[in-house]
């Protein structure tokens, strides 16, 4: 069966590509690390920020109770 010319073109283009898989994997690792760090910071401080707003609004914060 004759091969689809688009798939043939893809193979041809992939053969000519020179790219290190580790370079991109390193970038992904760094991005995910930053996202995790941000989420941990938010998780840590978010309840305190909410308490602060509650306090500013005049209500009793959790710490007051």
């Amino acid at each position: 069966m004759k091969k689809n010319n688009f798939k043939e073109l893809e193979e041809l283009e992939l053969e000519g590509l020179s790219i290190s898989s580790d370079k991109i994997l390193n970038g992904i690792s760094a991005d995910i690390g930053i996202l995790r760090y941000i989420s941990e910071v938010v998780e840590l401080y978010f309840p305190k920020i909410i308490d602060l707003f509650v306090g500013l609004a005049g209500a009793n914060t959790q710490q007051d109770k």
Partner: protein
Amino acid sequence: MLVNLLNPMITGAASSSMTDEEAIEKYLSSQNVNYFNLLYKRYFRKVYGKCFSLLKSQARAEDAAQEVFVKVLLNLSKFTGKSKFSTWLYSITYNYCIDVIRKKKKDLGVLVDDIGRYGENIEDDDKADTEILETNVHRLKEVLNIIPAGDKAVLLMKYQDDFSIKEICKVLTKSESAVKMKIKRAKEKFLRVYKETYAGVA
């Protein structure tokens, strides 16, 4: 703590004989990065290749491939298995590249909302399909590099990755009739450019 995908702390039995779906299931249940690495190694060249083909720059293709895999990693739990993993991954890839091109050029030819002239026939044209699929690979490459990136993306989704109309609809967030119209126009543009470029050449 940083996630080290290059040197995973946990060692697991991520085998190359494992299907994509099995690897995803294992990754989600164990969070063992070896299973993600398996998917990455299987697809990174193809994803990078698609990014390079559409963005035409090595640096931008590297950034795009990285972003695509970060999106995949963060959204792996949303993969429902209704389509093949490769289709889902390539949808994210096309979506991302189209967004990049859209930001670069405000007007991206075929990707703008042009539902089509009233009453225009949007059914599949088998003759155009045959003509396109019989194009010599080198000429195909040439013409795909001349036509707008939006048209190229639509043709690659249809012919290279065998996306269904519904899958293309999801990527472009357009209705079925709008997508059929875009495919028809992309084919017409391809054939027009082909004839202009190779007029008089055997």
